[in-house]
């Protein structure tokens, strides 16, 4: 029985996992959610900004991570829109601008004035260098936006020359270039507070920047979205996916557990057998 379990086909595991995902999506369990300090700090910072403040949102992500980050972006954008903050979007990953358009369209910003309350500047090639260039002279780096409108006379940029003139930067990140580059080129040298909406896989990596306060806040993926949704009292997809996440996590841990039971059982049997052989 145990050795059979040890040789189980991976596809059987995949099927079990697939079921573990689908069932709670169809029949939610309604488990409560957790709000971590980093999420709360991001919320507080946005809450503290006066109306009309300008926040740069850098959409540095691949479509690969978009599903995980979109609910959190929606929640944060809604919060910003309710507070009357102005959003300057830009991207240093080529898929960023299109995804930012989708995110804005799904948020409360759709009812606001484009070019005055929010703008999507599009993509700039070259990673860290492009960030530094945009930080130094934002309209110089983006003479026109993603929809090819000239930025020279957009009201949102009144009084903004470099990124020193904005109140906050939110980096939406799935990897590099992303958070460390923003800290190096903008956060530390220009003294602008940086928060991030980041895939869960990078949360552990960025912990040192949180403790050193080079990063003010961090919203981790879908879990962060669920927390933020409850903070602004607008439940959405983040909350809806939580149960499926719970069950899937549990399933993976059960796999680890069963795998180890099989491993130790087989090892002790092998030991017994070799002891018997030794005796014979």
């Amino acid at each position, binding site marked *: 029985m145990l050795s059979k379990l040890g040789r*189980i086909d*991976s596809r059987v*595991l*995949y099927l079990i*996992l697939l079921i573990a995902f689908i069932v709670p999506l169809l029949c939610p369990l309604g*488990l*409560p*959610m*957790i709000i971590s*300090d980093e999420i709360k700090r991001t919320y507080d910072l946005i809450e503290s900004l006066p109306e009309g403040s300008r926040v740069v949102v850098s959409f540095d992500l*691949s*479509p*690969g*991570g*978009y*599903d995980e980050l979109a609910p959190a972006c929606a929640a944060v954008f809604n919060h910003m829109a309710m507070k009357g903050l102005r959003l300057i979007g830009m991207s240093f990953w*080529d*898929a960023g*601008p*299109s*995804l930012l*358009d989708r995110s804005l369209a799904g948020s409360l910003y759709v009812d606001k004035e484009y070019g005055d309350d929010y703008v999507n500047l599009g993509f700039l*090639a*070259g990673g860290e*260098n*492009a960030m*530094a*260039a945009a930080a*130094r*002279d934002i309209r*110089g*780096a983006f003479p026109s936006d*993603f*929809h*090819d409108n000239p930025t020279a006379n957009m009201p949102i940029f009144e009084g903004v020359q470099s990124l020193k003139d904005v109140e906050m930067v939110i980096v939406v990140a799935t990897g590099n270039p992303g958070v460390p580059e923003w800290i190096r080129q903008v956060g530390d040298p220009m003294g602008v507070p940086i928060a991030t909406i980041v895939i869960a896989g990078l*949360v*552990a*990596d960025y*912990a*040192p920047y*949180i*403790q050193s306060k080079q990063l003010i806040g961090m919203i*981790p993926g879908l*879990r962060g979205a669920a927390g933020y949704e409850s903070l602004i009292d607008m439940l959405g997809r983040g909350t809806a996916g*939580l149960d499926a*996440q*719970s*069950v*899937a*996590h*549990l*399933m*993976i*841990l059960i*796999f*680890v557990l*069963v*795998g*180890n039971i099989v*491993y130790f059982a087989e090892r002790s049997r092998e030991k017994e057998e070799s002891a018997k052989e030794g005796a014979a």
Partner: protein
Amino acid sequence: MLRTATLAVTFLAGIIVILAFFFDVGFLATAEARVQDWGVIVAAFALAMASINLVQVNIRRISSSDDATEKICAVVLLAALVVMSIIGLTQGPTSDTYNVLFDGIMAPGQSTVWALGVFYISSAAYRAFRVKNVDAGLLLFSSAFVMLGAVPIGEVIWSGIPAVSQWIVDVPNMAGMRGMLIGAGIGAFSGGLRLLLGIDRTEVG
């Protein structure tokens, strides 16, 4: 001659942004701005070039492969590349047709490929994640708490799980990551220095 020119250009590009960072001198600031703006333009060319490289590789795949599937895949890839480029260059990247291709193929394609990782994680969890020694034990301990801390079910199992999970990330993980961050920073600095001065055998190009 060419090698000298390459080394000089590499060195100058790097040293200008370094000096401008430390010294507040007018001409350095101007030079930095110039170099950075040029960098964006050259990087844009490089981005397009990477795709052209893909074209080259796939044309070779069509002409040299014996496998029919290989040939078909290469043709499909090239066709997709050409169609996407033409639509994007003529109608712009925010046009309706372009958005259909972006939302219909590119975005779901990449996010599914990433999401597939969950299957390999599950079978590796079952087959390979063995508590063979102290290392593996610590790794399992911390990953189990972090996983359970990330979802509501953890709190249902034991109310202390979110706190333990947060502590692991904020204290031991933070300290370890910081050590690695400083070490890797020194490594990257050393690599950069060798590159700027042309003493790396893995030289540019």
